[in-house]
């Protein structure tokens, strides 16, 4: 389960693994100090395990210096901030630890 997670470490990772990914990608912006992020993470992993390979999960640690530009763009309202990307386009997003919104996003990702 864990090994399917795309860990974004550089701007190149972002381009290659999220924007240029052939499959839909759900991106989780999180931080180690963020309580709600810790609660949401396993729920996203569960949904990933159930998706039969239809979409990928990428995680972005907002404290990584190299990713500041991207983090400021997508995580400025708070975290956890979760985005659904497909073919480089942002399809949907939700903010905060919400199992319901995560399920909806997973369903949408599977249908793309």
């Amino acid at each position, binding site marked *: 389960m864990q090994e399917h997670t795309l860990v974004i470490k550089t701007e190149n990772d972002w381009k290659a693994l999220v924007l240029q990914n052939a499959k839909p990608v759900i991106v989780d912006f999180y*931080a*180690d*100090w*963020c309580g709600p992020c810790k609660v949401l993470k396993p729920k996203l992993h569960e949904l990933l395990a159930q998706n039969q390979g239809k979409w990928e999960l990428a995680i972005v640690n*907002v*404290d990584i210096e190299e990713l*500041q530009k991207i983090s*400021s763009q997508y*995580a*400025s*309202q*708070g*975290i956890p901030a979760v985005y659904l990307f497909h073919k480089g386009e942002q399809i949907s997003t939700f903010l905060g630890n919400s199992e319901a919104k995560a399920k909806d996003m997973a369903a949408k990702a599977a249908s793309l």
Partner: protein
Amino acid sequence: MDVEKQYDLFVIGGGSGGLACAKQAAKLGAKVALADFVKPSPLGTKWGLGGTCVNVGCIPKKLMHFAATLGELRHDQVEAGWVDTQVDSKHNWEKMVENVNNHIRKLNFGYKNQLMRGDVKYYNKLAELIDANTIKLTDNKGQIETVTAKNILIAVGGRPSYPDNIPNIQKLVITSDDLFWLQENPGKTLVVGASYVALECGGFLHGIGNEVAIMVRSILLRGFDQEIAEKIGLYMEEKGIRFIRGCVPDMIEATEDNKRKVTWIINGQKYEEIFDTVLVATGRVSDTQKLNLEKVGVNMNKNGKILCSADDKTSVPNIFAIGDCVEGRPELTPTAIKCGQLLANRLFNKATELMSYEFVATTVFTPLEYGCIGYSEEDAIKKFGEDKITVYHSIFKPLEWNYFEMHSGESCFAKLIVLNDNRRVIGFHYLGPHAGEVTQGYAVAMKMGVTKEQFDSTVGIHPTCSEELVQVTAVKGIDEAQKEGC
């Protein structure tokens, strides 16, 4: 012809003052940028956006002080009936530091977002002035960029200073810059200094179970009311903190097992002891050295503090300075914040209000906390004359302290200093639990010119410690401070 500048305001320093001014200026429509860069401490400690208060000051200090007080409460818990409380269970430093550091990182993140959402351009780069309108910015990889601004605000704060009589001291000791990010418990600690930083840190280190000694050159809490300062020291001593008075370290050396051997001399007699850690808290120095201020014409005093007029202007008309780096300002977060906001209002909203530093309330978070507003007794005597003031005093014991018998009945203390001719309360001093919470409200009254009679006509909330302040009648020099009986 004036070349248009990139920014209306460029702020150097992302601490309490700088952030407040930048955000307010941007709110008023100015084009604002802010540069914040933390130079690592000599031991390599660094941190994020937010300045001293957020990262290595008020915030971690208060959290660690709170952790220590929670330990002390175990004794009260037992007497209040709780079963299975372990009064001598150990404290886990790593857990406390992780939680404190995570909270700080959350604040760093929040400030970054506030700047972004407030349209303030944030540079995580070290700034230096080229001229009165040009700033050189260097990032941590050494890359340089230059920007221009109509107005510049210097809000660089300060950093801990080190004694200059010991070789290699910067690598042998820690300061408050390092303490709050230490990944391991500092162990048996010698605190050098008698500032509130020294006493607060020594206080909570002892409170979590460490052996602590505090080395004091002369008096405690210089600048604060000395009667209260000595009571604070006495309380800490009674708790088990050792004070080594009347000296400074003569030598500090690393031992083979990386402890610290400290030598000092009192009355010609040499003393020596091994500590795990030496924490130096002997003062702070303004962080203005590498800004190139002399070349640009910004005047400073010999300690590097910038000289400003009451409207925060430096000797260069478009360069302003606020906060800890300015001479004569209290080194406090709330005054820097307010000052920054008022400056932004004057620069970009045609306001005229200047910052007032009168009757600013403050609290020292020593094991027994101390809240004060206005004049110390010494300052009141110096300014007005001993015969022009009346000092009221009271020793009291918090009701909650009656569960655990080891609580002192004589440590808590309240003092009001009253000007005789108009009966105005010009000095407020509270030594006791929750001092910050107790003191804050009284600052409003003092700013409004409250008199002793207005205090006396105010009904107290019972049972509290705060009510002591509206009931104190004993006059120093005539009546004893301690009440007889109930």
